[in-house]
């Protein structure tokens, strides 16, 4: 991706342009900020610090006296070692989560782009109606909607039978089932991305569920970004004899990059940590990080290991996001 400066970022008023209302004291903004920031400080920043502290402590919740020991001189880095051995080396749950989320995000981008494009450029007076349609699935419980995929993808149901008849399932199974030539891949998809005869309880069901659940998070930023494009840029490209495809590739798509960045982040981050789709649509071997963290906290009670796992996920995602966001800047995203 080229680092073409996003025109949206340039057009947006920089902080200096914000006029301070006449007569406002210089501490007015701090008065406005304090209660909310305090809340975020106490219930977002402090817990994150506590999570890291827990990840370096020893003790378990369900045995002994149920207390945890944290000592600056004896930081329990072994919790991270254990988490790494258990969830990266022994069972590649960590890589699996990232790969599932990556595939789901790509799928979401491919599905959402035409939708956002249509709403932004081709919908005329139906624009508001279509935008309502995009958020309408949110109006009902996301657990119920995810669960509905069990009905849609039920074994030998119409959807699965159709995918079977056109050879799609067989194709996906064969293409993704690479036993020994690429061991790390084979570890993540031991039996291909899907079974030739079923979708439920395979990675494909989990990925489809993830892509489905975060589709509006991709569509809305894409739409916001496309909507801001000055249509005359695209007209200029076609006037200069570029084909529709070239105009899209060289003008429309680069100008929509801020939306692509925001949308992929808003999809990838929750998808990588999501425990619901894997639990409802996958088999036990499709467990993702969300499920592992949940299990360590709830069933094993090994809070330090669970905290290390959770912190590891956070660090990896923060690292990936900060590399990725460098091009967009948070002011643009917030």
């Amino acid at each position: 991706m080229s680092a073409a400066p996003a025109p949206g970022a340039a057009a947006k008023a920089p902080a200096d342009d914000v006029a301070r209302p006449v007569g406002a004291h210089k501490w007015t903004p701090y008065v406005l900020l304090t209660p909310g920031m305090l809340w975020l400080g106490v219930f977002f920043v402090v817990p994150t610090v506590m999570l890291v502290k827990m990840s370096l402590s020893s003790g378990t919740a369900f045995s002994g006296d149920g207390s945890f020991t944290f000592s600056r001189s004896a930081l329990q880095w072994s919790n991270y070692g254990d988490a790494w051995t258990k969830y990266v080396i022994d069972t590649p749950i960590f890589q699996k989560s990232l790969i599932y989320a990556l595939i789901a995000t790509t799928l979401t981008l491919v599905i959402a782009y035409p939708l956002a494009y249509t709403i932004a450029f081709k919908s005329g007076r139906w624009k508001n109606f279509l935008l309502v349609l995009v958020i309408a699935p949110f109006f009902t419980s996301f657990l119920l909607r995810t669960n509905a995929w069990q009905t849609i993808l039920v074994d030998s149901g119409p959807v699965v039978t159709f995918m079977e008849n056109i050879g799609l399932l067989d194709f996906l199974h064969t293409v993704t089932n690479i036993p020994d030539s690429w061991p790390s891949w084979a570890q993540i998809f031991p039996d291909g991305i899907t079974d030739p005869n079923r979708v439920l309880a395979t990675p494909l069901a989990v990925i489809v569920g993830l892509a489905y659940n975060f589709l509006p998070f991709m569509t809305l930023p894409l739409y916001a970004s496309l909507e801001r494009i000055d249509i005359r840029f695209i007209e200029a490209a076609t006037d200069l004899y570029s084909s529709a495809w070239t105009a899209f590739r060289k003008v429309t798509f680069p100008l929509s990059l801020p939306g692509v960045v925001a949308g992929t982040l808003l999809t990838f981050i929750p998808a990588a940590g999501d425990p619901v789709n894997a639990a409802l649509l996958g088999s036990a071997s499709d467990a993702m990080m969300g499920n592992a963290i949940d299990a360590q906290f709830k069933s094993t009670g090994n809070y330090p290991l669970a905290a290390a796992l959770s912190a590891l996920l956070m660090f990896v995602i923060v690292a990936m996001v900060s590399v990725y966001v460098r091009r967009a800047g948070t002011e643009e995203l917030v």
Partner: protein
Amino acid sequence: MSTITIDERRAQALAELPPYREPGILARGSRWVRAHIIQFCAAGALLFMFIPVVIVVIFSFNLPDGKYNYVWAQFSTSAWVNVWSNTQITDSLTISIEIALISTLVATVLGTLIAFAIGRHNFRGRGGTNLLIFMPMATPEVVMGSSLLTLFVLAGQEGSLGGLTITIAHIMFCISFVVVTVKARIAGLDSRLEQAAMDLYADEKTTFAKVTFPLVLPGIVAAAMLAFSLSFDDFVITNFTSGQTVTFPMYIWGAAGRGIPPEANVVGAIMFGLALIVVLVPEIVRGVRKSRA
């Protein structure tokens, strides 16, 4: 060489051309499809988004054979008739609504104040503020949930996990979404309207009360609706902070293993209908007003 008039030449040329034929229905059809391919993909995406919602509604009318409501068995309205006598559902719904109302109120107030500070004032630490607003949206819910659980455990409050801790968590993650929504509205405001009010001798308080606030209000209402739906529907963070308290999503999660009864689908269908009414009625009213004007 005989001379011919231009008209004769034209007639000759036309006669040499292959006869013009209307493109066949297939050719026209395929051209039309190619011209509208993006719209077809968009329609497909909308279909993908809506099929699960349709399934949720349809299966609220199912009378499942066993305990699992996955396969269509028989049409029945019994779930709709019996939904309010299922105390597990009504209890969990009550808890979810209470939590969502309190979280929405607090998060909307706190978030709106922050949005005004960011959108209307210059101050030191803007970057840090923006980062702190952005972080909860960029952190996986499992991480936030487990962090809060760790905080409550280390504070010795593991026994008091319940409605209060759920509400605290919901307010926390709703604030960012409120800020983003209200801030967008403030950024889109035409400052000349406020200047006009000031020019007409309105003082700051009056300008704020009569011009600024009413103009930002739709953004605040939208933010509150967003916060309500986020809180009402949250499962992942609630799962870590709920203790023994069962919200509606927690109830569904618990029921998923032993079979979600069609009554839960009824609640889903009602939620969908209500939200649709809340969103569509103002649109329709606006449309009617416009057509009258």
